[in-house]
Structure formats: C-alpha cells, structure tokens
C-alpha cells in the first residue's frame, strides 16, 4: 500500500518537476548538505561540552541556550530540504535499504534527544558548572555524536546507485 502511495506521489507533477529540473534540485540538495554545518556542526559543540571535552568554563545550560536556537533553524532547513529530496524520487528512497537505515538512526537520535531533555537535563542546575557532567549527560553527548555521524555517512551513501545493493 505504502509503495503504491509513493508511486502515485512520484507521478505527481511537483515530483516530476523537481526530479527533472536543472537547478532547483541542485539548490535543494546543496541546502541539505550545507545545513549540516548549522545543524550537526553546532550540535557537536554542545555534545563536546556534555562529554566534558571543551569550553569547560561555561555552564552547560548557557551553551545549550546559545546554540539550540541555531540548531533548530538548521534542523528545519534540513527537514524541509530532505522532504523535498524524498518527494523528488519517493519510490527509489522507499526501496533503498540504506535510506531505511538512515531513517531508523534518525528515530534513535530523536529518542536520545527526548530522553536527555526529559531526564538528566531537567536537573541541569545541579551540574551546570561541572567540568565533567554526570554520566548520563556524557552518554547522551557521545550517543548524539555517534548517531549523527552515522546519519551523515548513511545519508551520503544513499546517493550511490550500486548495482545489486540498493
């Protein structure tokens, strides 16, 4: 059923226009790639602080407050451009195992963010100034680094069309 829906989606005029356009597709894809800097790149800085690697003199909450609005902006760009890319060729992405892996990793990354914010970050006031934050915060930071790295790598590999390996 899902596949039929994506087939229909791929045949809509918007999808065809995007797929066959000369420049729009390239602009959308470039936006998707370069938004990485804004979104993942800045998130890395918070992760590094959570693990206790750098900017140790600044409270965790201050770095979070300063960085999160920008990562949210980056995330919106990422999701919008990503959705457009998917819309341009839904059936191909639907059938791609690497794309499915990427989506699963995205779900895990979202769960990680949610768990972090609803548990250990609630009590941030108690460890805000710690040079090395509590173990659960460090785990969240490390997981975030690992998951986003894996998402970038799988995202890049989606674009290759290997024969016998979708």
């Amino acid at each position, binding site marked *: 059923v899902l596949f039929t829906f994506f087939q229909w989606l791929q045949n809509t005029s918007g999808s065809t226009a995007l797929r066959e356009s000369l420049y729009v597709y*390239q602009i959308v*894809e*470039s936006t998707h*790639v*370069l938004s*990485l*800097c*804004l*979104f*993942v*790149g*800045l*998130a*890395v*800085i918070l992760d*590094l602080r959570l693990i206790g*690697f*750098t*900017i*140790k*003199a*600044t409270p965790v909450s*201050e770095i979070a407050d*300063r*960085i999160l609005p*920008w990562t949210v902006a980056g995330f919106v760009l990422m999701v919008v451009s990503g959705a457009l890319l998917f819309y341009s060729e839904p059936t191909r992405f639907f059938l791609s195992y690497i794309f499915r892996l990427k989506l699963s990793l995205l779900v895990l990354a979202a769960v990680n963010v949610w768990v972090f914010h609803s548990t250990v970050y609630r009590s941030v006031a108690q460890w805000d100034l710690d040079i090395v934050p509590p173990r659960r915060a460090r785990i969240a930071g490390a997981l975030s680094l690992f998951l*986003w*790295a894996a998402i*970038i*790598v799988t995202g*890049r*590999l989606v674009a*290759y069309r*290997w024969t016998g390996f979708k």
Partner: protein
Amino acid sequence: MSLYSFCQWCQHTSIGIAIAGSKWQFPIIESVHLLALAWLGGMILAVDLRLAGFGSRRQPLSQFAKDIEPYFIAGLVVMLTTGILLFLSEAMKCYSNPPFWFKMAFLFLAITFTFTVRRRVAMAKTISPLLGKAVAAMSVFLWSGVGFGGRGIGFW
C-alpha cells in the same frame, strides 16, 4: 611541470589508482569528508556567531575561541587529508572542473583569513562590535564559497 601534467601524475600515483579502482574507497572517504564538513562548519559558525555578537558575553570570546581552536584544527586536518585523497583519485576530472578551482581559490583565502585576521580579532582582549561583525561575515562568506564550490564539483 605544468599543472596539467601534475594532475596527470597525481591520478597515476598508487593511491590515486587504488581509490579510483575500488568500489568502496571513494564513497567511504567522501563520507568522512562530509562528516568533517559538518564538524568544521560547526566550529567555524560557533566562533563567527560569537564574533557577530550573538549569545552571552559572560565568557570572554578569546577564551571561547581558544577552547574551540583544537577542534577546528582537527576538523581541518581530516578535511584536507580526505580531500587530497579524493583529488588523487580523480585529478584529471578536477583539472577541467571550474567549481573545483573556484573551491581551491576560496579555500586558500578562507584558510589565510582564518589564521591571520580572524584569529587575531577573536583572540584580542577587546574588539569593536562592528569589526567583529565584519570579520564574522567575511569568514562565513569565504567558507560558504568553499562549501558551494565543493558541492558544485559533483554537479558540473
């Protein structure tokens, strides 16, 4: 040796041949290049946003820039290493690829600017807000040029 024959030589090095002949090596190196892009981009943006006056001023900018610098340099090293490997595998394609040369020009300017003007301004005890904004804008402009040029290589 002309640029042309240099590129030819690069492509015929054993590393270049190995990467070009392998199904997996290029994609893997390229993925790492992209990982470093996110990393490096974040390190650049974080300091530029501070320079432009966003965020708190409780922690001195010079301390922040100093904390970030090793991570910036680590990202740059990974970026250059993987970039050189990618170049070796397709040097002749790059030779006749305008976005590649566009990227190299911006890369040269961006690195020079970062380690001279931007570093001095970011590490200074006090800077005027206008200077900070100008340096941040220049930095974002130059590094964006590198990024767009890089993306353009594949589209050309």
